[in-house]
């Protein structure tokens, strides 16, 4: 089976790219770095409502577009390319994924609210010391009351709804819980992130009112992680492509020694090697995105390939882009470092490339 995007998918990509180019140029994203929420609320609302991207792969019954994860990943790739700083990944992808895998009675309502953009959700699952194994979670729920601490929460300050993985003190099993962000007993601590365009926070819960959304076991959790990892990888590959484009563009205009630096093999070959690795990683990301819609036995394998390839190539692309720019590439005013920061941050989130190389072999059964 050969992989190609359909005309409709290409059209979607084009639409999103144009939207982001006009509404979220990097200069605007720079302004948002200093804003309270880190993004422009109107832009996010337009994405969700005008473009109808609030729940691309969510069921039509809940207001979603009923498309596949491939479409979701196309949008994320464009957002990665544009370094979009809004809560799309956290709310409209990861939270939607979480809500879609729960059978709790109230999830449909929550999902409808998130998809429609009436509510912004974010996931709170990682715990202190970057623990992200389900079995390690200490956050606990007791008869509708949740306590504990979660960290590495994306876009915390602007979220209306928190979706939390916690252990039930009663059943001793793990489940997902929903908490209104303005509930009593919640304490936000903003974290200083190396990635200036994605807000991180620690959130402490002290007997906060929580609604159980559904149980989550190891296999469900792994499936959720695969979805998250594939989403992130596709976003990363967009950033990598942008870094390559930026390097090539600069190399083609910058003149030293009477010639463009792009005519020198050192630069030329660096860009050619990078293109190859970007293309390889893209293939992994696209293949993985496609697999997420199918009960594919190899989903975890494909997710790990995608994350490993995307992690390595995005960091390398950003480093190469800085290098091609020379001194100017290391300045604050040059935009390259904003992608480099995103690359370094995404590289390690939910496992770096060596982690996923090992995981891939284990999933292969060797």
């Amino acid at each position, binding site marked *: 089976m050969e992989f190609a995007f359909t005309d409709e998918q290409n059209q979607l990509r084009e639409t999103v790219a144009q939207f982001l180019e006009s509404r979220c140029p990097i200069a605007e994203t720079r302004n948002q770095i200093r804003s309270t929420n880190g993004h422009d609320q109107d832009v996010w609302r337009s994405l969700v409502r005008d473009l109808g991207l609030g729940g691309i792969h969510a069921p039509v019954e809940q207001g979603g577009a009923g498309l596949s994860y491939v479409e979701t990943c196309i949008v994320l790739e464009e957002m990665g390319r544009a370094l979009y700083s809004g809560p799309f990944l956290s709310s409209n992808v990861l939270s939607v994924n979480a809500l879609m895998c729960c059978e709790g009675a109230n999830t449909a309502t929550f999902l409808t609210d998130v998809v429609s953009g009436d509510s912004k959700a974010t996931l709170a699952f990682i715990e202190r010391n970057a623990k992200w194994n389900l079995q390690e979670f200490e956050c606990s729920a007791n008869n509708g009351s949740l306590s504990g601490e979660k960290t590495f929460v994306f876009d915390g300050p602007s979220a209306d709804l928190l979706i939390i993985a916690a252990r039930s003190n009663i059943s001793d099993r793990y489940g997902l819980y929903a908490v209104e962000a303005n509930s009593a007993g919640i304490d936000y601590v903003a974290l200083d992130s190396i990635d200036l365009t994605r807000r991180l926070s620690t959130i402490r819960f002290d007997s906060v009112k929580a609604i159980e959304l559904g149980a989550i076991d190891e296999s469900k959790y792994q499936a959720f992680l695969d979805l998250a990892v594939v989403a992130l990888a596709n976003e990363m590959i967009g950033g990598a492509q942008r870094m390559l484009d930026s390097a090539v563009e600069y190399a083609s205009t910058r003149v030293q020694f009477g010639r463009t630096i792009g005519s020198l093999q050192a630069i030329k070959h660096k860009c050619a090697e990078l*293109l190859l690795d970007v293309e*390889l990683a893209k293939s992994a990301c696209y293949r993985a995105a496609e697999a997420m819609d199918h009960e594919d036995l190899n989903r975890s394998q494909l997710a790990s390939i995608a994350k490993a390839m995307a992690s390595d190539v995005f960091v390398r692309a950003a480093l190469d882009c800085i290098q091609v720019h020379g001194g100017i590439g290391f300045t604050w005013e040059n935009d390259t470092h904003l992608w480099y920061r995103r690359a370094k941050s995404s590289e390690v989130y939910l496992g770096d490339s060596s982690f996923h190389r090992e995981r891939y072999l284990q999933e292969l059964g060797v």
Partner: protein
Amino acid sequence: MNVDWSESKVRQDVREWLRANWNPNAKLIDWRNTLVDSGWGMPAWPSRWFGVDLPPGLVPVVLEEFNRFGAVGVARTGIRLLAAETLLAHGTDEQRERFLRRILTGEEIWCQLFSEPGSGSDLAGVTTRAEQQGGVWIVNGQKVWTTSAHHADFGLLLARTNWDVPKHQGMTYFVIDMRQGGVDVQPLRQMNGYASFNQVFFTNATIPLNMRVDDEGNGWRVAMTTLMYERRAANALTGQGLNRRSDGSIYEEEAKESALLTEPYTWYPQRAGRVDLAVDRALATKSIEDHATRQELSRLLMMSKCAEWTASRARAAQQQGQSQGPEGSLGKLANSQIAKQALKVHTMTSGMESMLAGEDGPLDGLIAEILLSVPAISIAGGTDEIQKNIIAERVLGMEKEPRLDSGPFRDVRRN
């Protein structure tokens, strides 16, 4: 004859014809002649020249039907089809008359005489000279990396006929008879022990005037046609195994023909690193328990998977009508990196045993053969460095290297 082809008509016509003509116990030469006469051997070729003017998009239908019947096609091994396509595009009718049929029937074997010791990456730097003298062309010089030259009846020769014009303008393309005294073919042994190529020395070899292909000075353009078909053939290498449903004497004949010309390629899978063996080797040697090996193995498997998917994306893009361009260079570069990574992994999994070759070596010497063959992959068919130039300049649109060889070839610095 202008036929209004449709898929069903093609399928029906081919089926009918095969039902009437295919005989797995015919003599290969007789069958091939029948096939060539029918036009179904090279259906996209013009009716005037052994084809039926079939639109290229429908050719797969013909192949499917041949496959269904297990019917043998025209001779394809070696470089004979490159010769045929080149002559079809640039040859005289006399040349086409003389050569095309016997290429397709497999009666005559061809070789390609482009590369020289002094012009490797710089293919246009040929210094083998052809001079018109006494009603013939006299050829002197040396070619190298010539596959099957010792079997060949004819060669596609690129030679310099004018030294006073820029390098690309001074070459002419010829068909040369390889069975003559002025042509000396010597095997060229590689570091892995195989001798898959030849060196060919020309000492006052002769070419009749009517064996020049296209105009004098047009050699580079003609060679580009040959190379285009070579690249296409290389990209189409995978797949297409003939479905041999029935027994028949013709298969033996064909297998023999095929073996002769595919023999030089037996080590190519080793050159590509034999990724297929990696996991089993890691399990067999227990190096799968070593975490450094696991990381490199995983990296290899991922690279290999991603390269497959990338090739698949490229094929899909082609099917969507995007032209096949320099992306082939990306695939070639990927294969080179994968083979180098496989070299590393096979070394790690075999450990100290990888010091041994032949029967004493792991997998009866196969591992050693991999270690000794992989270095070729980043060189043969255009070095990695050349591929990167192509990718940067033609895919990414970066500025070309300034040229230092644009004057008359006589004055160009060379080896």
